[in-house]
């Protein structure tokens, strides 16, 4: 792609390859290339470097979903539900978020609502110890909604600023598991009028087009107010985020760049677009 002197078919083919191999997907890639092709036809774009810059700008503006700034002080406690399919990094991300929010001077509490998977509660308890925050839990096999109920009581009585709820990984296509998630959601709503204040869907950056299906179904079932893209320290570009932001208008709030407590960054659309080109 570098070193091209004129815009020609080869350059557009190369750009198509960059976009597809970054997981933007066929449809988003075609839309973006069509937009720049229009500009080329109208002689508004003549040089290859300008073309790449234009694409970067397009990607950045799609990712810049207009959304109210996150204000965790607006509610007491501020309740955040963390959801997503299996293995994407929900539990680890909650550990990182707890560390982040605690560093901002807030009192944070975690709720172990994954009562299903082997050692899920133990895993969150260890993260709670690393971040020095309390974890509300019940014995394995108990109802996730019961843990959510208890956690809300504890967060209020102990004057917590933020409550983060970890949920079990689940396929968005499994109706009974999505029903279980709805029940946790309803439990929170009944305990506090506007809770949960945020529902964050965690997506693995190595995931391809299926991430769009995940985002659509989670949004449709319980509503999603933010995305977290993990494992960006690998070689995957996470380009499916562009398709998701475009279609569903959900902002990416944070990215995960590793397995340790500090490996969390606020999302930067410009940096993300740069990493693709």
């Amino acid at each position, binding site marked *: 792609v570098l070193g091209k002197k004129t815009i020609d078919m080869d350059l557009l083919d190369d750009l198509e390859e960059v976009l597809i*191999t970054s997981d933007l997907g066929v449809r988003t890639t075609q839309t973006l290339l069509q937009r720049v092709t229009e500009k080329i036809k109208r002689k508004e774009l003549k040089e290859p470097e300008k073309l790449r810059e234009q694409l970067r700008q397009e990607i950045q503006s799609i990712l810049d979903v207009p959304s109210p700034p996150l204000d965790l002080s607006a509610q007491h406690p501020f309740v955040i539900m963390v959801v997503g399919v299996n293995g994407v990094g929900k539990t680890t991300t909650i550990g990182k978020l707890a560390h982040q929010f605690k560093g901002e001077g807030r009192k944070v509490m975690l709720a172990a609502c994954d009562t299903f*998977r*082997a050692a899920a509660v133990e895993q969150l308890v260890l993260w709670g110890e690393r971040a020095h925050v309390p974890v509300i839990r019940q014995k394995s096999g108990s109802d996730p909604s019961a843990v959510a109920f208890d956690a809300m009581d504890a967060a209020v009585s102990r004057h917590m600023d933020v409550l983060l709820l970890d949920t079990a990984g689940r396929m968005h*296509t499994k109706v009974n598991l999505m029903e279980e998630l709805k029940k946790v959601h309803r439990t929170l709503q009944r305990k506090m009028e506007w809770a949960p204040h945020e529902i964050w869907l965690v997506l693995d950056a190595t995931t391809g*087009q299926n991430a769009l299906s995940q985002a659509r179904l989670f949004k449709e079932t319980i509503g999603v107010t933010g995305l977290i893209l993990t*494992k960006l320290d*690998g*070689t995957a570009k996470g380009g499916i985020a562009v398709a998701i932001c475009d279609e569903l208008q959900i902002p990416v709030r944070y990215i995960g760049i590793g397995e340790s407590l500090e490996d969390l960054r606020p999302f930067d659309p410009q940096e993300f677009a740069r990493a693709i080109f």
Partner: protein
Amino acid sequence: NLSDRLQKVFKYLKGQGKLTEENIQEALREVRMALLEADVHFKVAKDFVSGVASRAVGQEVLQSLTPGQQVIKIVNEDLTRLMGGKAEPLKLTGKLPNGIMMVGLQGSGKTTSTAKLALKLSRETRRPCLVPADVHRPAAIDQLVTLGKQLNLPVYASRTDQKPEEIVKAAFAFAREHNCDTLLVDTAGRLHVDDELMGELDRVKSIVEPSEILLVADAMTGQDAVQVADTFHDRLGITGVVLTKLDGDARGGAALSIRAVTDCPIKYIGMGEKLDALEVFHPDRMASRILG
């Protein structure tokens, strides 16, 4: 879906004798799009489609099928053949206990698949024991110990203050004590670009001398599947693949990408979180799924 799109492409082809370069150009474009939408890698999709082109051009348009159906038939056959043609079993040979190493990226399903495989082997009258060699992830050892207890199979009691190399070394004596003929080694998830951790895996391999090194890969993996599989295979020598989470709605194009770049067979697929949700891989079923 692809059949409908190919029907459209070919609706003026009735009564023309052969599939020619021109009349299948558009059809092949649709096939390539379908593969990319299914997460097949860009280059793998390109190579695959040119393979289909050379098979299709010059074929007589058959009486029994529409041209669209004919192209799909060729694509399906090529996909099935590329992904291994038939199911391939584990090769557990040599001195006992036979070692099986489960490797791959973070969160792909290694620990769960290790337990699932242990259950399957025990039902096939082998005597497996589980070896938790992940000392990095919080409660990883706990996770495999819990699963082993559910299955009533022996699990070596690793501790987080041990090195993976020490754990697998000690696991041999453990296997002999419990009269086990198979060692199932669960390793920590790691990035293919983490040189140090890939080196660790190499050291574990030289101690275990495994009969099988299975790359556990997530069926929803996108374009990255090629880089990951290529690097793991290059550095370790993969002998097979376990493709997990096929109970979701991911098309699973990663299956084709991984096979294309490593030529290693997918031996099992994960079809759920329960420990009996491990099935033998069928290339023809995967082909239909990828094509949507």
